[in-house]
C-alpha cells in the first residue's frame, strides 16, 4: 500500500482558525456602506384572498426607503416548477406567503414599518392533510399550473413511478409477505446560522448577491432566469458565499427572500440585507416534508427478498421546491438497499396549504429507509429469521447492478453489519424483550456525485506563485464540513506541497469555474478528483521548470561557496540527470533528484525554482497554473427512472441498544454504533465528525423533533418546543470506519456527508420493538406514542 504523507491523517482545521477567534464573517456580520435592512410581511392565513393592502403608513415612517407589494414588482413566477410569485398579490396559500416587504435604514424601523402595513383578507377553507387533498371533491390549492392551464387535482405534475421485474408473480411465489404503513413527519434543518443575503446593484444594474447558497452557479442561473423576465436580461450576476452557518438542504434552492432582497435593492439603489430571525427559520423556510409509505415486502423460505412494493404520499405544502424531487432518491433505497429483484415504487406529491417543503440532509433517503428498514425487521420476524442474519442474507455486494441500474462497484455493507453485530453484542442482547433491546438498520446513498443536472462536474483552478503559495479557486462551498482541510490534504499529497501552503477562494461565480453544487455528499469525491487532475498538471509544470532552473541554481550555489571558501571542493553532480523532469520529485515542497535525494545541492524549496523560473523576461516569463474540469462518467435517470447516477455508493449500518421505561414511555439510548463504508478516510477525525453530527440529527428525527403544524401554522417556532437535542442528551456513539478503497474516488474516498443520518431512526424503532414488543410506525417516537402503544398492547392481552 502506498504510504501517504497527509491523506489518511487527522489533519487539524487550521484553515479555519477564524472560526475559533470570532473573526469569521457570516452574512450576519456583513455591512456594506449605505446598506439598508429588509423585512418581510407574511400572510396571516393559510388560505385566503387578499382584498386590499395599504402601505401608506409604512411608507410615511421616517427611515423607510421602500415598501413593496405584489403590485410594485413584475408578476413573474419563480421556483422549481414556477408555481409561485415573489410577492403574492391576490391570494395566499400558506402562512409563510410573502405579502409585502420593507427596506429601511435599520432593522428596527423595517420591523416597525411592517407593523404599519394593513392587509385585508378573505379567509378560505384550507387543506392540511394530503389524503384530504387527494379526494376528488377537494378544493384546488392551485387553480392553474405554471402555464396557466387549469389544474384538475392537487397532485403535482411529477410522476414518480419506478418498476422492475414482476411483482405479482414474486408475491405469489413468496413464502412470507408483510404489509405495513409508516409515516414520517415535518422536521426543520435547524442551521445554527440564520438565513440571509445581501443584494447590491452597481450603476449599470449588474448584481452582486452575497448568498448562503451551496450551489452558487445554480443560484446564478435562477437569478439570470428571473432577470430575463423582469427586463434585466443580460445583466451580470455575481453570486458570492461568505462563511456559512450550516445548510442541511436549506441552501439548495434560491429562496423567495433572496428575490425580495434583489427587488428591494433594485428599488432603493442601495445594498439591502435580509436576515432571518429564528422564528422565521422555523416558519418561513421550507422543511423536510412528511411522507406516508405503504410498503409490502416478501421473501422466500430461505429468507431471500422476492419483492418490494412501495407507495408514498408526500405533503408538498403550497408550492414546490427541491423537496418534491426527493422521490428520485427515495427510489435508491427502495430499489437497491439489499438485493431485491422485483420492485415497484410510486410517489405522489400533493399540494396542501401547509408550508412548502424542501430537501434536508439525506434527501428523501431517511424517510424511505425508515419504511424499508422497519419493514425488513417485520419480514424477518414473519420468516422466523434473526433480523441481522436476514440483512446479511440479502446484503449488497461489490460488483453488482441493482434493479435501478445502479452499479455497485465497491460495497462494505457486509463489514458494516458484522462490525455492528459484534460491537453491540447483538447475539447476546437481541430478542429478550426485557425493557432493553437492540436494533439495526442499514443504508445506501450516492457517494460519487449525483447526476441531477446535465453536468455533475466541478471546475477547479490551481495556481502557484513565486513564494510557493498555492491558491485554489473552486466553485464548491463549505457549510461546515471541512472541505478546506480535506482538499488541502488531497492537494498537498498530490502536489508534494504542505497543507499550510494551500489557500482557498471558494463560492464566487466571478472567479470559479462551474460546479454542480456542494450537495449530495459529492464534494470530497468530485472536487477531490478535480483537484487530483489539476495537481497532476501543476506538478508537471513545476518539475519541468525545476529541470530547467535547478542546474543554474545549483551552479550559482556552488559559485557562492567557492567565493566564500577557496578550499571548497565542488560536489560531483551529474547535471545530465536534470534534462528529464521524470528524474525529479517534490515532497514537502522540496524539489530533489530522485536518484540522490539526500544531496543538499540537488534539493531545494520549490519557491527557489519558482522565483527563478516565473518572472524571467520578455518571451520567457511563464505561469504555473492549471484549470481542469472533472465530470464523472455517470448517467441521468432515464424516463423509467433508471440509470447509474453516481460513480459509487456509500453503505453503512447503525446499531442501537435502548432501554424503554414502561412507566413513562421514555427511550434511553444506551449504545449506538454507526459503521460506514467510506472508501478511504482522507481525514478520520473529520469523517467521524460527519457521522456523529448526522447520527445526532437522525436521533432527533427518531425521537424528538417535529414541527407542529396546526391548520398550516407552525406552533413551535423555537428550539425548545421543537425539541432539538442538546449536549445533555448524551448519546454514546461509536463511529466505525470501514475502508475498502474505491478505485474511482480520490485516494479511494467516497462521500459521507449524509449517510450517518439515514439509518438512525429505523434502527431506534427496531431496538424499541426488541425491547418491549411494540412497534411505533410514526416519527418521532415520543414517550406519549410509546405509552399509548404499550397500553394498546396490554389492553389487547387483557382482552384475550
Amino acid at each position, binding site marked *: 500500500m502506498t504510504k501517504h504523507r497527509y491523506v489518511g491523517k487527522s489533519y487539524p482545521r487550521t484553515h479555519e482558525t477564524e472560526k475559533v*477567534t470570532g473573526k469569521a464573517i457570516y452574512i450576519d456580520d456583513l455591512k456594506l456602506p449605505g446598506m439598508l435592512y429588509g423585512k418581510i410581511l407574511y400572510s396571516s392565513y393559510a388560505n385566503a384572498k387578499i382584498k386590499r393592502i395599504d402601505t401608506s403608513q409604512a411608507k410615511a415612517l421616517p427611515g423607510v426607503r421602500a415598501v413593496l407589494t405584489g403590485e410594485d414588482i413584475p408578476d413573474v413566477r419563480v421556483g422549481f416548477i414556477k408555481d409561485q410569485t415573489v410577492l403574492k398579490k391576490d391570494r395566499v396559500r400558506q402562512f409563510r406567503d410573502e405579502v409585502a416587504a420593507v427596506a429601511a435604514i435599520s432593522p428596527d424601523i423595517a420591523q416597525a414599518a411592517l407593523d404599519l402595513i394593513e392587509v385585508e383578507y378573505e379567509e378560505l377553507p384550507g387543506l392540511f392533510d394530503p389524503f384530504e387533498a387527494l379526494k376528488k371533491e377537494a378544493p384546488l390549492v392551485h387553480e392553474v399550473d405554471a402555464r396557466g392551464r387549469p389544474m384538475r387535482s392537487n397532485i403535482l405534475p411529477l410522476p414518480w413511478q419506478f418498476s422492475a421485474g414482476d411483482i405479482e408473480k414474486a408475491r405469489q411465489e413468496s413464502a412470507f409477505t408483510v404489509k405495513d404503513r409508516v409515516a414520517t413527519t415535518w422536521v426543520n434543518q435547524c442551521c445554527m446560522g440564520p438565513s440571509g443575503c445581501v443584494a447590491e446593484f452597481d450603476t449599470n444594474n449588474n448584481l452582486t448577491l452575497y448568498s448562503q447558497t451551496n450551489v452558487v452557479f445554480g443560484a446564478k442561473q435562477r437569478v439570470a432566469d428571473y432577470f430575463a423576465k423582469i427586463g434585466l436580461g443580460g445583466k451580470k450576476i455575481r453570486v458570492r458565499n461568505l462563511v456559512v452557518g*450550516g445548510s442541511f438542504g436549506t441552501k439548495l434552492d434560491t429562496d423567495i427572500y433572496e428575490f425580495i432582497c434583489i427587488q428591494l435593492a433594485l428599488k432603493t439603489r442601495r445594498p439591502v440585507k435580509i436576515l432571518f430571525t429564528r422564528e422565521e427559520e422555523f416558519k418561513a423556510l421550507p422543511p423536510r416534508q412528511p411522507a406516508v409509505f405503504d410498503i409490502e415486502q416478501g421473501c422466500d423460505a430461505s429468507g431471500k427478498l422476492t419483492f418490494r412494493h412501495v407507495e408514498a404520499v408526500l405533503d408538498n405544502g403550497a408550492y414546490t421546491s427541491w423537496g418534491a424531487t426527493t422521490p428520485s432518491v427515495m427510489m435508491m433505497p427502495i430499489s437497491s438497499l439489499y438485493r431485491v429483484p422485483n420492485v415497484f415504487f410510486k410517489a405522489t406529491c400533493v399540494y396542501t396549504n401547509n408550508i412548502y417543503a424542501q430537501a434536508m440532509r439525506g434527501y428523501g433517503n431517511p424517510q424511505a429507509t425508515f419504511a424499508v428498514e422497519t419493514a425488513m425487521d417485520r419480514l424477518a420476524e414473519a420468516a422466523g429469521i434473526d433480523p441481522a442474519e436476514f440483512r446479511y442474507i440479502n446484503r449488497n455486494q461489490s460488483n453488482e447492478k441493482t434493479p435501478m441500474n445502479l452499479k455497485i462497484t465497491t460495497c462494505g455493507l457486509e463489514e458494516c453489519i458484522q462490525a455492528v453485530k459484534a460491537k453491540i453484542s447483538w447475539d447476546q442482547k437481541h430478542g429478550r424483550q426485557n425493557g432493553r433491546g437492540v436494533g439495526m438498520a442499514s443504508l445506501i446513498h450516492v457517494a460519487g456525485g449525483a447526476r441531477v443536472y446535465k453536468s455533475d462536474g466541478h471546475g477547479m483552478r490551481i495556481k502557484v506563485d513565486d513564494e510557493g503559495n498555492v491558491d485554489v479557486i473552486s466553485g464548491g462551498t463549505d457549510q461546515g464540513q471541512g472541505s478546506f482541510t480535506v482538499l488541502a490534504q488531497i492537494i498537498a499529497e498530490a502536489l508534494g506541497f504542505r497543507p499550510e501552503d494551500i489557500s482557498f477562494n471558494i463560492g464566487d461565480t466571478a472567479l470559479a469555474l462551474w460546479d454542480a453544487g456542494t450537495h449530495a455528499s459529492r464534494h470530497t469525491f468530485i472536487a477531490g478528483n478535480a483537484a487530483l487532475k489539476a495537481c497532476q498538471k501543476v506538478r508537471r509544470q513545476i518539475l519541468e521548470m525545476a529541470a530547467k532552473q535547478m542546474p543554474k541554481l545549483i551552479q550559482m550555489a556552488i559559485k557562492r561557496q567557492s567565493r566564500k571558501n577557496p578550499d571548497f571542493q565542488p560536489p560531483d553532480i551529474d547535471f545530465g540527470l536534470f534534462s528529464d523532469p521524470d528524474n525529479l520529485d517534490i515532497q514537502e515542497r522540496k524539489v530533489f533528484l530522485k536518484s540522490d535525494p539526500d544531496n543538499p545541492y540537488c534539493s531545494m524549496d520549490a519557491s527557489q525554482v519558482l522565483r527563478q523560473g516565473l518572472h524571467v523576461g520578455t518571451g520567457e516569463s511563464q505561469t504555473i497554473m492549471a484549470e481542469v474540469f472533472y465530470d464523472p462518467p455517470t448517467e441521468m435517470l432515464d424516463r423509467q427512472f433508471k440509470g447509474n447516477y453516481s460513480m459509487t455508493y456509500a453503505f453503512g449500518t447503525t446499531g442501537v441498544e435502548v432501554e424503554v421505561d414502561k412507566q413513562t414511555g421514555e427511550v434511553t439510548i444506551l449504545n449506538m454504533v454507526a459503521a460506514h463504508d467510506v472508501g478511504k478516510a482522507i481525514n478520520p477525525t473529520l469523517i467521524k465528525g460527519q457521522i456523529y453530527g448526522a447520527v445526532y440529527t437522525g436521533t432527533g428525527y427518531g425521537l424528538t423533533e417535529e414541527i407542529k403544524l396546526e391548520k398550516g401554522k407552525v406552533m413551535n417556532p423555537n428550539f425548545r418546543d421543537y425539541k432539538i437535542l442538546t449536549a445533555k442528551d448524551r448519546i454514546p456513539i461509536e463511529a466505525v470506519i470501514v475502508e475498502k478503497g474505491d478505485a474511482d474516488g480520490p485516494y479511494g474516498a467516497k462521500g459521507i456527508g449524509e449517510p450517518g443520518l439515514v439509518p438512525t431512526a429505523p434502527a431506534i424503532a427496531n431496538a424499541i420493538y426488541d425491547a418491549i414488543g411494540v412497534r411505533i410506525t410514526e416519527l418521532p417516537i415520543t414517550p406519549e406514542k410509546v405509552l399509548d402503544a404499550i397500553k394498546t398492547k396490554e389492553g389487547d392481552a387483557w382482552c384475550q
Partner: protein
Amino acid sequence: MNKITVNFNLNGEPVTADIPVTWTLLRTLRENFELTGAKEGCGVGECGACTVLIDGESVNACLYPIPEIEGKSVLTIEGVAHADGTLDPIQQAFVENNGVQCGYCTSGMIMSAKALLEQNPQPSESDIRSAISGNICRCTGYVQIVESIDMATKTQNVKNPE
C-alpha cells in the same frame, strides 16, 4: 432614542459608550464595538451562540440589558486568544479535534467552556455537558466539542502545573 452612558471593561480594556437604553449587550457588542464573534442564533436565550463572560460567568448576551453592564468586566471570543495571536488551549483543541464545523455556535461554545474551566479545571464529561447544555450545535452531535474541551483541560494543566 434615549441613550445611556455605560462604563465597563471589555476584553481587558476600560470602555465608555453611549448606547440606546433598550439595546442588549449582544447588540452593543456587535453594532457599537463591531465585535461580531458573538452571534444571534435565536435572540431568546435558547441557543447560546451569543455567550460571553461577565465577571467570569457565562451569560447569554442577547438577553442582557445594557444598563446592567455598568462597572462589570466582559470577555468575548475576540479576547480569548493571547495578544500575540496564540490561541487559547480551548481554541487550539477545537481546531485540532474538529470541535468546529460550521462555526456558528463555536464562539458561544468556547466561552461556555472558558467559564467552566476557570471554575473547574478538571471537569468530568458530565460537567462539560452541563456547562454547554445551553449551547446548541447542529453539526457535531457535541461529541468532538466535548472531547475538545476535555483535551483543553489536559493541555492547560500541562502548561500550568499546579
